[in-house]
């Protein structure tokens, strides 16, 4: 960080301090261009100065994101989550398909297949065969498709709204007259025919989605959301049309068109909410559609541009913003030999890079896939809600048929068909889950299975690994004992200079040394380093190695809890350094949080028992075990589970794979290793342990929203269906109630989980008040 006060710009008459030269330049440009009012009208903080690059990255979009035998598919003509379920099942039954996951919120499918057995055309055909369309993912086409969809939806809505308004006007005289005779029979017949004429486009055009959906459900021999609605609307219209043509009976054109309008309005609002929920994921998915590059290509990346693939820097010095992948917003320095990841932004200077992984192989693509897959693994609670929604539609149709047969009243049957709201059961939970995944990703937390969210809320025990999890995995000096006449400062200076010539991991414990001070450095592998500084010969290393120079016995015995190395010269011993694996700075606070949440924390370490004990003592962990093999850890977790505990394992992604898979829910430190390959439910991409508490808190909020939504949907349906069956709710009131119920659930799903955008600086997770369904 630069010294304070170096980057100052006068904004709106007040001097403001900025974090870096980049932001200063941006702010200065804004102010100098006379656009200061941006700071008055903006509602959230800006992105880091990397915005212009997005345009470059989307250039040269390939035809499809198809690499090897995996593809992301856009699904079209999908109407509700039952359709998505059907597509998923269909895809999984195509011979040769290894994996098929459908994301309910983004409406994309992810398919992997065996190239020897099948191909993409066969898979697309399978989807088309059940009445839907699928295209390989393509950002431009996706956008065009969405715009078309939005316009058509709005046009249908308008036709229905205007039709409903007009028809209500023509129906009004008949209501006012009430059969009193002021309205002549001719005039009434005119009104009926006019109503018929205006309801016709509503039925033929605006209702298409409902009828199409019902037809598909019929073809698939199942009953979904659209069948009851289509039956209700169609029945109402036909009965009214018959009354108009024969000149007798009642007409309800006004109710039918109003019903269609309200249903469409609810659906339109639903679509808007869904788009909002998934928008935050877009940049990551856009990376997936990056330029076609092959491994070992050299690419020049201009400043402000996104890296098109994973690779190694060949030339140039710059810094990169990897916040998209890790949530870490500080720029990371990059020079020749450093790794860069696709999707991160080159901030300062042009760089030349060599591609090591491109297309679907990149880390960004892997993360995008994982995020989509996460939503596909739904918590058990959500799965049972979806089953309930499907069962509900059958109940509804049977009830309506019974009402029609026994009471002989078409309108009671129509009201029953329309008032039920199974979509509230099936839709709102996936939206909450998508939002949770996106919010977590913004903090560098990669949720790979949504199911884990549910498990986390029930957790009773947390088992933590030590090396690489509670500690950084890097050694640091924890104490120095002076043994000779040199001062500690001087000893540390000599040690740092000597170690600067070495590449051993221990050398990291002595940073900042200058190797040029050392003459004739010599490295004894596994022993230590020697070298001359100001003419004197020094050795740093194991006791035995130094003794052969100092010619004296080792003055101290090792305590066992720490690694000990010595510094000596020809006259005798100088210092003993105790080295310890450095604790993560946030470790103590995180353990404290977990304990405050009522969780039992265990430490399971592969290190020697005294080392494990020392760490446990420092962090206040009461239950600890050292010298555990991966199998011991797995047994330990299994024992806890056997005792009825729900165990969360936090470990190093690579070494602890078995125990991570065995625990009820697991966190892994990502450490830049292939996040996509890890077996954990949650990957902490930016290695911050603090994210464990954050994930726990967020999972609790998300699950609470899901529970509220399901509870509301169940209560609503349990109340509304009997009322409609009793004839207390008319068809258009039913439509209003159904729409209101859908919207209630959706609005609740979009409520204060956390800011949905990963870049919003203000993390105002305002306390969610108890739900008020008025």
């Amino acid at each position, binding site marked *: 960080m630069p010294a304070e006060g170096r980057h100052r710009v006068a904004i709106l008459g007040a001097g403001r301090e900025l974090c870096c030269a980049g932001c200063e330049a941006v702010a200065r440009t804004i102010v100098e261009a006379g656009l200061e009012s941006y700071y008055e*009208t903006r509602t959230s903080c800006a992105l880091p100065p990397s915005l212009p690059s997005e345009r470059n990255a989307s250039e040269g979009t390939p035809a499809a994101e198809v690499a090897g035998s995996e593809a992301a598919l856009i699904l079209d003509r999908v109407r509700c989550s039952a359709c998505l379920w059907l597509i998923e099942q269909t895809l999984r039954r195509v011979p040769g398909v290894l994996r098929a996951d459908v994301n309910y919120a983004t409406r994309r499918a992810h398919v992997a297949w065996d190239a020897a057995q099948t191909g993409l055309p066969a898979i697309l055909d399978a989807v088309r065969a059940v009445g839907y369309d699928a295209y390989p993912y393509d950002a431009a086409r996706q956008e065009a498709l969405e715009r078309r969809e*939005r316009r058509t939806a709005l046009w249908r809505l308008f036709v229905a709204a*205007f039709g409903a308004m007009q028809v209500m006007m023509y129906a009004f005289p008949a209501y006012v007259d009430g059969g009193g005779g002021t309205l002549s029979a001719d005039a009434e017949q*005119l009104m009926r025919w006019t109503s018929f004429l205006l309801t016709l486009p509503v039925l033929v055009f605006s209702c298409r989605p409902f009828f199409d959906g019902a037809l598909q459900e019929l073809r698939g021999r199942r009953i979904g959301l659209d069948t009851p609605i289509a039956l209700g609307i169609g029945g109402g219209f036909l009965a009214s049309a018959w009354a108009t043509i024969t000149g007798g009976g009642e007409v309800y054109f006004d109710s039918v068109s109003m019903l269609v309008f309200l249903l469409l309005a609810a659906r339109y609002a639903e679509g808007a909410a869904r788009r909002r929920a998934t928008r935050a994921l877009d940049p990551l998915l856009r990376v997936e559609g990056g330029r076609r590059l092959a491994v070992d290509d050299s690419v020049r990346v201009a400043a402000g541009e996104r890296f098109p693939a994973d690779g190694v820097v060949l030339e140039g010095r710059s810094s990169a913003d990897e916040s998209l992948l890790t949530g870490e917003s500080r720029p990371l320095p990059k020079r020749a030999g450093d790794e860069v990841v696709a999707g991160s932004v080159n901030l300062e200077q042009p760089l030349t890079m060599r591609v090591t992984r491109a297309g679907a192989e990149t880390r960004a693509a892997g993360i995008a896939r994982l995020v989509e897959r996460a939503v596909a693994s739904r918590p058990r609670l959500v799965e049972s809600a979806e089953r309930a929604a499907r069962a509900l539609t059958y109940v509804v149709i049977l009830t309506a048929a019974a009402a029609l047969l026994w009471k002989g009243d078409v309108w009671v049957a129509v009201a029953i068909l329309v008032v039920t709201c199974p979509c509230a059961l099936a839709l709102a939970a996936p939206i909450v889950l998508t939002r949770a995944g996106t919010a977590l990703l913004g903090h560098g937390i990669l949720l790979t299975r949504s199911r884990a969210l549910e498990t986390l809320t029930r957790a009773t025990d947390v088992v933590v690994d030590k090396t690489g999890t509670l500690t950084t995995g890097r050694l640091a000096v924890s104490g120095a004992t002076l043994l000779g006449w040199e001062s500690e400062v001087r000893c540390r200076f000599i040690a740092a200079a000597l170690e600067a010539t070495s590449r051993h991991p221990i050398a990291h414990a002595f940073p900042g040394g200058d190797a040029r001070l050392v003459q004739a450095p010599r490295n004894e592998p596994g022993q230590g380093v020697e070298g001359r500084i100001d003419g004197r010969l020094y050795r740093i290393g194991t006791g035995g190695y130094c003794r052969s120079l100092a010619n004296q016995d080792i003055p101290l015995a090792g305590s066992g809890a720490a690694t000990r190395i010595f510094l000596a010269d020809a006259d005798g011993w100088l210092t003993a350094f105790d080295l310890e694996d450095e604790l993560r700075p946030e470790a103590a606070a995180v353990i404290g949080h977990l304990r405050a949440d009522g969780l039992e924390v265990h430490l399971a370490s592969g290190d020697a028992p005294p080392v494990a004990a020392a760490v446990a003592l420092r962090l206040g962990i009461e239950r600890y075990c050292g010298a555990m093999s991966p199998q011991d850890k797995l047994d330990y977790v299994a024992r806890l589970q056997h005792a009825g505990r729900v165990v969360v394992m936090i470990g190093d992604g690579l070494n602890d794979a078995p125990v991570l898979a065995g625990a009820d829910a697991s966190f892994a430190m990502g450490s830049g290793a292939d996040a996509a390959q890890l077996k954990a439910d949650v990957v902490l991409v930016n290695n911050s342990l603090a994210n464990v508490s954050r994930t726990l808190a967020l999972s609790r909020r998300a699950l609470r929203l899901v529970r509220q939504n399901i509870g509301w949907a169940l209560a609503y349906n349990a109340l509304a269906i009997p009322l409609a069956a009793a004839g207390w709710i008319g068809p258009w009131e039913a439509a209003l109630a159904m729409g209101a119920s859908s919207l209630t659930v959706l609005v609740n799903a979009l409520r204060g989980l956390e800011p949905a955008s990963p870049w919003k600086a203000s993390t105002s997770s305002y306390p969610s008040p108890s739900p008020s369904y008025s």
Partner: protein
Amino acid sequence: MESLYLLVPLSVALVFVIGWVFWRALEGGQFDDLERPAHDILADDENPVQVQVKRAD
């Protein structure tokens, strides 16, 4: 009452005219971005004479 026989068909014709106008507006892209105009009114026009209305598509 006879006016009904003129006015009711006239209202139907009007509905179709309004429907057509809305359709034109929709296809012209006026409803594609409903958020931007709300922000536009907060910003002062630099040079009102030169402002041109342009549609993205």
